């Protein structure tokens, strides 16, 4: 859980969490209100702040930026490829089963706006996640009077996530040591055992 460990060790760890939250959220809103150029500026800004001020390795940051790409590309392609009635307004077009599909100039401009906006907002999220520990975020929510049951569950789940990840890790190593992942077939069986034993363990501990 790389993001979590950076959130406690980055150079902006000591900046007040409310300031970081405000910075991230206000910039997010900005992204929705202005054009693609603003969004490109935000992407650059967040990269500079996160990598140079908070000292998150650029490699890590770029790797994170790649996570939503499959969603982004597939969704945008789905959006821009449309049925076109008039072939002349399409920039590109092709026929399938007698239907003409194509991409229009308007579609492309929408796609560009959407593409940069999503990346800009994502970079705000990454700034927040990489610099602000979950513990601090929960404390801020407490100040904003979120219901105590909700906050308690938030804390319990956060804590137990690490207990279970540790357990899953230990089981995995133990299985791997006994050749549990030596073949694909072994791997399926081992993972099934891992999941069910993890469930039983957490059920028993609670």
């Amino acid at each position: 859980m790389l993001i979590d460990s950076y959130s406690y060790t980055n150079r902006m760890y000591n900046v007040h969490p409310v300031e970081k939250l405000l910075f991230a959220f206000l910039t997010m809103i900005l992204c929705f209100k202005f054009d693609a150029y603003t969004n490109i500026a935000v992407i650059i800004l967040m990269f500079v702040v996160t990598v140079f001020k908070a000292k998150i390795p650029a490699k890590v940051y770029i790797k994170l930026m790649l996570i939503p790409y499959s969603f982004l590309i597939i969704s945008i392609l789905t959006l821009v490829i449309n049925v076109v009635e008039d072939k002349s307004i399409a920039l590109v077009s092709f026929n399938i089963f007698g239907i003409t599909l194509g991409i229009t100039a308007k579609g492309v401009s929408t796609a560009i706006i959407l593409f940069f906006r999503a990346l800009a907002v994502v970079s705000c999220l990454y700034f927040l996640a990489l610099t602000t520990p979950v513990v601090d975020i929960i404390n801020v929510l407490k100040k904003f009077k979120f219901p105590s049951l909700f906050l308690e569950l938030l804390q319990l789940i956060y804590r137990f996530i690490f207990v279970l990840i540790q357990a899953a890790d230990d089981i995995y190593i133990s299985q791997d040591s006994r050749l549990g992942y030596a073949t694909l077939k072994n791997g399926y069986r081992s993972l099934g055992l891992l999941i069910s034993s993890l469930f039983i363990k957490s059920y028993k501990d609670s």
Partner: protein
Amino acid sequence: MKKWMLLTAFALLLIAPQIAYSMHIMEGFLPLKWCIIWDAASLPFVVVGLITINKKVKENPKLKMLLGFAGAFAFVLSALKIPSVTGSCSHPTGVGLGAILFGPFAMSVLGLIVLLFQALLLAHGGITTLGANTFSMAIVGPIASYYIFKGIKKAGGPNWLAVFLAASIGDLLTYVTTSFQLAIAFPAEVGGFTASFLKFMGIFAVTQVPLAISEGLLTVLVINMLSSY
């Protein structure tokens, strides 16, 4: 029987490509208006969920720990990588399992929390799309699962069938909701909402149906194992 089910489940998870993540609408993808609409739509369910949990916790304080572990389990499950030849991976959602064990309203709260942590710790989904994702994954899916399960049980159907259909249809309805959310935010130039909805449904059908089936099989297995303990 258990063995072939497990194998089929994993084989299907294997075939399904990485787009499994795409059930989460990514951060910043929905227009601000729709972010707020889905936040507002999810809120009442979460509030009712909190009230329900509060009542139950007062009767049985240990339930809080159990819910904590359930939420953490769902998160860890989604973070597990399934080994495969192609190196791609997919992730069970645990939506149906949770709904059957804890009821749909508790799941709205747990689901919201898990989605928040997925955004903050794994960079899946996002804060602005939290409401929309909660609505599809923590409200529609669990409610569907729960009532399908109850319905089939009431009609005298076998337990495994009830669990299987609850989990897999719950999963499918989650994708349908996601498609709906994307389509209504981005209607097609020609054909409007309907055309857009069909496009997204088409994409999801290819990728998510095998996932839904494998999730159903896995859930049957886990429920069976639990009842044997």
